[in-house]
Structure formats: C-alpha cells, structure tokens
C-alpha cells in the first residue's frame, strides 16, 4: 500500500541551505566526489566487461567448430590494436574487482562508510600497482614476438 501525503510535503532530510554553509550534500555516499565517481566508474566498467564477455564466450565457442576457425579468430586478439584493447579490458576488470571489494566493505564493515573515501584511493593505488605489473609484460608479449 502506498503512503499518501496530502497537503504536507515530506520533510527534507538534507539541511536547509539557509542553515548550513557546507556545499556537500549530507546523508549519502552516492552524490558528489569520490562516492559518486566510483559508482559511475563501476557502472561503465561493468557494462563494458559484460559486452566483452558476450563476445568472448562466442569466440571461444569456435574451438567446437575447428582448430582453423578458432585460430583465425583468436589471431585477431594478438594484433597491436587489440593488445592495447586488452590493456583497457584488464584495467576495467581490475578496477571493477577492487571497487567491488570496497562496496562489500562499505556494506558489511562497521567502519566502511567512514573510510569509503580513503578506500577509493586505496582502490586506485592497488589498481595502479596491478597495472604496473601487467602492462609492460603484456605489451612486450604483444609487440615483440
């Protein structure tokens, strides 16, 4: 059953602009700054990974057609342009994975909401370390063999 409010508008949970000097909206992680941008990045990387996954299941299914068909298609993953695409894909996956852990900690760790902003920068830091480990080795494989 829906609650009907007739005449009296719901009281706003946010402080009235005349009584606060803060420019940041209160009471939410998800509006403005790190909380919002991590959410935006989580969505964009999630959608990108989903569409890659659709293609990746189909290209892998070609092993059931013939060795020749599979090798022809997987060969296109080994070109320099796709090599750079794989850097973007791995970057998206690593961010989505680490930020996913951050979301779980916000939900279940009692201090999660207090440290959500710090954890965003931890995510960025771990992402950078992982990419420093991955990118040079991958690009050497793509460009030198």
């Amino acid at each position, binding site marked *: 059953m829906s609650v009907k409010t007739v005449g009296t508008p719901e009281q706003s949970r946010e402080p009235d602009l005349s009584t606060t000097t803060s420019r940041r909206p209160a009471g939410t992680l998800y509006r403005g700054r790190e909380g919002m941008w991590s959410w935006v990045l989580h969505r964009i990387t999630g959608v990108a990974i989903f569409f890659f996954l659709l293609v990746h299941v189909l290209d892998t299914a070609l*092993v059931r057609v013939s060795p020749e068909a599979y090798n022809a298609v997987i060969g296109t993953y080994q070109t320099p342009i796709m090599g750079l695409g794989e850097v973007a894909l791995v970057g998206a996956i690593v961010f989505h994975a680490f930020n996913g852990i951050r979301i779980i900690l916000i939900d279940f760790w009692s201090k999660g909401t207090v440290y959500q902003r710090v954890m965003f920068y931890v995510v960025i830091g771990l992402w950078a370390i992982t990419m420093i480990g991955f990118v040079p080795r991958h690009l050497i494989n793509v460009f030198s063999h």
Partner: protein
Amino acid sequence: MTSTTIESPRTPAGSAKTRGINWEKWGWVYMRVSGVVLLVLIFGHLFVNLMVGEGVKAIDFAFVGGKWSDPFWMVWDTLMLWLAMIHGGNGMRTIVNDYARTPVLRKVLKGAILASVVVLIALGTLVVFTFDPCPPVTADQAHLLPSFCPAP
C-alpha cells in the same frame, strides 16, 4: 473540484511485496558472493592466459586443448562462465531498471538480457563438456592440434 494526491517521493512504483521469497535481497547477496569468487577466478584466468609464458601470443587451439583436457580448468572455466554471466546479467538488469523509462522498453531490454545470458551459458557449458582436444582433421591441419594428440 478534484483534489490531487501527491505520493511520497520514495513510494515504490508497484505495491510493495511482503510475502514470498525476497528475490531482490538474494540478488543483492549474489552480487557480493559471486563478486568475491569471480575476483579469484578471473584474476587466475588472466594470469595464466596473459602473464605466463608468451601471454596472449601463446593462445591457440592447442593451448585451449591442453587446458580443457584437465578437469580442473573445465570446472574453473564453467564456474567462471555461470557466475560471470549471471553477475553481469543482473548488473545490466539494475541499469535497465534505473534508466529505461517505459514499461515496454524495460520488458524488451530485460528479455534481451535474459535471452543472451541463458543462450551463452548453455552454449559455453556445452562447448566445455563436449570439447574434443584431438578432433579428426586433415593431415595439413594436424600441426594445429595439441602435442599429446596421436598422429593421424
């Protein structure tokens, strides 16, 4: 004169369900549980396929044949397929719920998501478990097979 009733801003579009299984809650739980498992499965997948040896350059039919002759990787990849497709499909459903406004568009998009998830899980599972690493090939293609295959 008719009076206009303005609903509270957070009133759900439909009537709130109070009985039966709370699917939205279990969907929420699923995203977190599968997310943690997928982190391990996908990081392992990426490490073995892109970091070890010559990385992406070493992937070909013989490479896949070698992996899928081992039940360990068959189970790993099948688990990854199911968990990832459902995780991704449910994430896409959330996005459709947020941005698609008309009921028809929402139905069409969610139907397309469900269809692609079901078809790809079925296809992928079938491929992993009916895969033959040493299929009958003509002599000129024998070199594409894994090294453990008997000579034709």
